């Protein structure tokens, strides 16, 4: 028999030195890491964004105010970054979600070589985004790229993806979609695992056809997972940077017209050494992501229908 008191109910829980310090000891390493690498920088960035005339070397600043925010909101590059990031998220997330749903439902059915297909779709996840970016750079190559080759087979004239500013954003979006799909598939497959296959059998016996089963049974049951993947993808997409960097040799597009919020942040911080505006742009990005997350949480709660 279990020793009495080893697992006490909530009601007779008592805070003693043992029940407090021992669990606290276990938590300490993680908490310490979290405090040093997440919480402290987070607070520091917020403070930094309000410091005016901040000197990174001496740590001195001339005052507290909103001048960093004023600066970036008047900076064409930042506004351009906001616009590009929004467009990127707006295109990439829905398209990637629909494509992932398609692939996930196929992977979830009984197909031959299921394992092989699964591996293929998940492979990008274990490869460095920068390395993949370099491959895509070649795919997009005007003269030798595979994409233009296939387009030429369809009779479409070669597109200068990486050097014509008009096509820079589409190039980034297509690559972004490709990049987002594997993780989304994994999450959706996990969602599929939680759906008892008996519902589909029951619907079939009830006389439902495959399409009806998908739209009336599977999709509603998958809705909570779909909501979750979309939140994750909006957050991930808002931080687009590692996709952009290798594609244009570290430049924000061929004509410096493809700034994203994180690229702007990087540019301000590492290249221009304007730490205050960099911090302000980080805070604004944080707020945007926060708003989206709250919005989607509300929607997701409405979607969770059982």
């Amino acid at each position, binding site marked *: 028999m279990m020793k009495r008191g080893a697992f006490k109910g909530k009601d007779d829980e008592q805070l003693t030195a043992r029940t407090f310090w021992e669990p606290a000891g276990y938590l300490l390493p993680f908490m310490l890491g979290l405090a040093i690498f997440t919480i402290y920088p987070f607070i520091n960035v917020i403070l930094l964004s309000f410091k005016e005339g901040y000197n990174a070397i001496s740590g001195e600043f001339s005052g507290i105010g909103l001048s960093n925010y004023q600066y970036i909101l008047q900076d064409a590059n930042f506004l351009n970054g906001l616009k590009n990031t929004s467009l990127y998220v707006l295109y990439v997330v829905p398209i990637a979600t629909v494509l992932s749903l398609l692939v996930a439902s196929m992977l979830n059915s009984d197909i031959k070589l299921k394992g092989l297909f699964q591996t293929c779709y998940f492979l990008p996840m274990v490869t460095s985004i920068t390395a993949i970016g370099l491959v895509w750079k070649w795919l997009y190559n005007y003269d030798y790229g595979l994409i233009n080759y296939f387009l030429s087979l369809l009779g479409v004239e070669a597109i200068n993806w990486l050097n014509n500013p008009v096509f820079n954003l589409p190039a980034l979006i297509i690559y972004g979609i490709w990049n987002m799909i594997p993780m989304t598939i994994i999450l959706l497959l996990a969602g599929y695992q939680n759906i*008892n296959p*008996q*519902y589909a*059998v*029951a*619907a*079939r*016996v*009830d*006389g*439902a056809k495959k399409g*009806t089963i998908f739209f*009336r*049974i599977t999709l*509603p*049951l998958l809705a909570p997972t779909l909501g979750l993947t979309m939140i994750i993808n909006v957050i991930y997409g808002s931080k687009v940077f590692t996709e952009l960097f290798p594609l244009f040799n570290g430049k924000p597009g061929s004509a410096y017209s493809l700034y994203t919020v994180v690229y702007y942040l990087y540019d301000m911080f590492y290249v221009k050494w304007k730490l205050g505006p960099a911090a302000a742009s980080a805070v604004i990005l944080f707020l945007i992501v926060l708003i989206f997350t709250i919005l989607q949480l509300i929607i997701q709660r409405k979607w969770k*229908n*059982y």
Partner: protein
Amino acid sequence: MQIRLEHITKRFGETVAVDDLSVTIRNGTLTALLGPSGCGKTTTLNMISGILPVTRGDVFFDERNVTTLPPEKRGVGLVFQNYALYPHMTVLQNICFPMELKHMPKAARLEKALALAEMVHISDYLKRKPAELSGGQQQRVAIARALAKDPNVLLLDEPLSNLDAKLRVEMREEIRRIQKEAQITTIFVTHDQEEASSISDQIVVLKEGKLKQEASGREMYEQPNCLFVADFLGSPTINKINCVYRDGNVLLRDSSASFPCKAALPIENGTELILAVRPESIVPYAADVFCSATVVERYSLGRDELMRLRIGEEQYIRGFVSGDKDILAGDSLAIGLKERGVFLFHAETGERYL
């Protein structure tokens, strides 16, 4: 609708789940597919519904061969073991779903759903989601949904196994009532012999994918055709007394007792037999003494009292405490056997001789 299975066999790779099963289920009856787990009863049900294709053999609904028809074209109502109610739909939506798929007009399907809800007593819960219902209520909804499309056959897969003991008795009577009210041929799968005998018109006993016996519950209890059926039906279980056959006599292994057979059995001397005796057929202090036994213990089952007896060294049997005399542990009794509820089987093949 009459359902006829003709020599159906189901193989999963090397395993034979159902082996050459031929059964006829009469129109309008409630039939139980009974057997221990792994006997192929759910597989059989799934082959009737069409969820599983048969490996060999034919399934007939009346005179129509439905062997190759998919489930949606067979017109079967199916109640799953875990009910499989669509969790995102309300009770009403669940019941309406099959009718919606048949493109029944909205007013008609609403009317029908309400009538069905009335019949299974769930009218008060129509707006609820399945998660907000108890097991018994979910069960009723599942039955209503299965009946919604006017099926030819109602199939229930272990319908009571997810309910607690008290509700189980209540729900099995409900299933019987609903089945009679809907006048629908119904087959249900169960591993509980009491459940099977209490509500069904006909029981089909399966073992290792093979048909053992097909009869009414009463008939099966009183005239089991093999040791397996005799052993499977009845609670407390039938007593199995080890015997040996010798020169027209049946000798008890653990005692000097024996009895003559009316006719010579077609078996060799020394063949091992099982004398199977229902507990209620053991009579203490009988005038016609069969053998003597020692009372090991007695215990109560509520209404009845049981006693555990020992014959010889290690042959234990159970019987009901009856008669005027008080029976105590340690007593030595002379016991007799009634004529009913006493059978003789071959120990290995289970074949019945008496």
